[in-house]
C-alpha cells in the first residue's frame, strides 16, 4: 500500500510533497496542477509528505507488500 492517496479536492498543487519525498515517489501533474503518486513501489513509508502537506491531503498507509523474488530479472 505505502502512500495510498492524495486527495485531489484538498491538493492545491503547491509542490511541497514533491520536494519532501526523498524517494521521488510524488511528482506534479502539470496539466492538472495537482500532485500525483508516480512511483508508489519506492515509498519507504517515512510519511514526511503527509506531515509536511499544509492541506492534510495525503494519506500514507501503515504497510507495504514486498515482492516475491522472480528468476528472470524484472
Amino acid at each position, binding site marked *: 500500500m505505502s502512500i495510498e492517496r492524495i486527495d485531489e479536492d484538498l491538493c492545491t498543487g503547491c509542490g511541497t510533497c514533491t520536494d519532501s519525498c*526523498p524517494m521521488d515517489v510524488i511528482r506534479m501533474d502539470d496539466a492538472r496542477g495537482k500532485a500525483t503518486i508516480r512511483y508508489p513501489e*519506492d515509498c519507504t513509508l*517515512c510519511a514526511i509528505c*503527509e506531515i509536511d502537506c499544509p492541506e492534510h491531503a495525503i494519506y500514507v498507509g*501503515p*504497510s*507495504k507488500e514486498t*515482492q516475491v523474488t*522472480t528468476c528472470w530479472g*524484472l
Partner: protein
Amino acid sequence: MSSQIDAETDVLVIGGGMAGLFAAIKAREEGVDVILVDKNYVSKSGSTAFAEGDYSVCNPEWGHDVRAWMNQATVVGEYLNNPEWTEITVRESLDRYNDFLAWGVKPKEASDGSVLRFRRPVGFGPLECCFLGRGWTFLPAMRRQAEKVGVRIIDRVMITDLLTRDGTAVGAAGFHGRTGDFYRFEAKATVMSTGNGTFRNVPGAMGPVGFLSYDGESMAYRCGARIGGKEFANTGATGFAAQKNETARVDLRGKAFNTIPAKYPGWVSYGPAISFTNSYVDAEGYETNRITAANTIHEGRGPIYWNLDGARPEDLEATLRDIKDSKTEFRLERVGLDLTKGGLFTGVLRLESAPGHSIFGGGTGISSTGTDCTTDIPGLYGAGDVYQSKAIGASYPAFGFALRNASVTGARAGRAAAQFASKTRRIPLDGKEVPELKEAIYAPMERTGGFSPDWAEQQLYNLMVPYYVLLVKHGDRLAATLTMVRFLKNHVAPKLTARDAHELRLAHETRNRILSMEMILSSAIFRTESRGSHYREDCPGRDDANWFADVKISNRGGEMELVKEPLPSEWLPDAALTYRERYPRRFPGEG
C-alpha cells in the same frame, strides 16, 4: 533528448545533509563561490533528515569533561579511533552548536526554559545530548542559512562520477533524476558529503533512508582513494513498533532491553551477554545487543521479542514524548498500537537493513589523510558519514556522535576546500570526457533488455541481510556470499536497465551498493579477529598482536586490493592491563 548543463564554481559540495550544509556555508563564508548539489531536495535529504536529533555538544560550562567524551569513543571503539580526530570533534562541537543557535535551529527546552540536556536511559552512552528535533524539522533552517549566505543549491541531481585530471579532483558529473539532463561541474575543490548507505525500500529499516547508496565512497574508490573501516559495517537491528507486516516506524530505542521477564525467550537467558549488558549497557549496549541478539537467533532461541511490560515509566514517557515531538503519533494509531498498555510486541526487533549505520560518524568511508579533511585525491575533501575521519573506532559509541562528527568535519572540509580553491587555478575541462561520461551514465536507458534495478536490489538484499552474513560472521559464509556479490557486480550491474530518469538513478544506486557490499565482505574476510561491531564466530577474540591495524581498500585496475595498515601502539591502553581489563566486553564464544 536530454540537455547538457555546465556549471563552474570554486567549491562543489556533493550531498546536502548535516555535513554538506556545514561545508557549503563555511566555504561560502570564506568568500568563494559554492555550489551544493543533492540527489534529493536539500533539507529533506541525507541520513540527517531522519536523524533522531540528538546532538552531543561537549560544553565545559555545563560541567562536561572532554576526556570523558573522548573515552567513550576510545573504549567502545576498542582503540581504533584516531585520538586527535576524536578530540577535534568533541572540542569543536560547542562551536557548531553555537552555529545552530545563530542559524535559528532551536534545541528543545526543558520546562524551566533552559536547554534540555539528557541521557538516553539505555544503551546509548553516558554522555549528555541536546535535542535538535527530528532532522526534517531543523534542516530547513540550515537550508535558509545556506541560501542567505549565497550558496547555489541544485536539487535532484545525482552525481555519478568524480572528475580528475592528473590525479587531482576537478569537478563532477551526473544527471537530473527527473528531467534526465546531464550535469557537469567544474570546481577548484570538491567536498564529498554523500553519507553512508543502506538498502532501498525496506519497511522497518533503521530509518527510511533507502536513498543512501554509498555514492561518495564508490566514486572516490573508482578514482583511486583508499576506503577503510568497511569490516565494521554490520546489519542494523532496530526496535520498531510493529505488528505483523505493518510498521509504525516508531523507534522504541531499546528502552526495555534490560527488563524483559524471564518467561520470554531471548535476552534474559543469555548469560554472558546479559552480564555485559548489565555492566556496560550505558557505555556500549547498542552494538552488543545487536550481536548477542543475532547470536541468540543463531543458537535457535529466536525470534527476539520486544517487551514493554517492564519498561520504566520514565523511559516509556520519553519514548512517547519523542513520538509526539516528531508528530508521528498517527503512525501508531494507524497500526493499532498503544504503547502505554505495555505488552509483548511481535516481529518488532528486526535484524535487517542499513549495513553501515553500525559505524557511521567517521568509522568508515573515504580515508582521511589529515585533520583538514583531506583525502588521497588532491582537491577532494570528505565530511560526515562518507568520510573515515576515525573520530570513532570499531563501533558506534553513542547517540549524538554522528551529527556532531558531520557538523565538525563539514565545517572543517568547507573551510579547507575554500582555502585550497583560493590558491588554486581552475583546471579547465576540455569536453573530451563528455561523450564517454554520457555513454556510461545513460547506458541503462539504452539497453533493450537486462535486469531491473528492483530485481538486482532484491537479490543483493537477500544475500546480505540474513543474520549469518554480517552479524554472526564466518570466513566460509563470507566467502560464499562474496562469490555471489561479485557475480552481481560482474554480470548483473553491467546489464541494469532503466525506463526513465527515475529508474536511472536507481540503477546507479544499485551499482554503488553492490560495490560497497564487495568492500564490506572483502574486509570482513581479511580481518581475522573480532573487534567492535565486527564479530566472527571463527575467531571470536581481539588479536592486538596481529590486528591492531586498519584495513584499507583501493582500486588496482578494477580489482580490490586490501592492505593492513598498522596503527600507533601508543593508541592502545597500558600494556599492563589484562585482556579482560582492556576489553571488558565478551563476544559470544570467546570464553
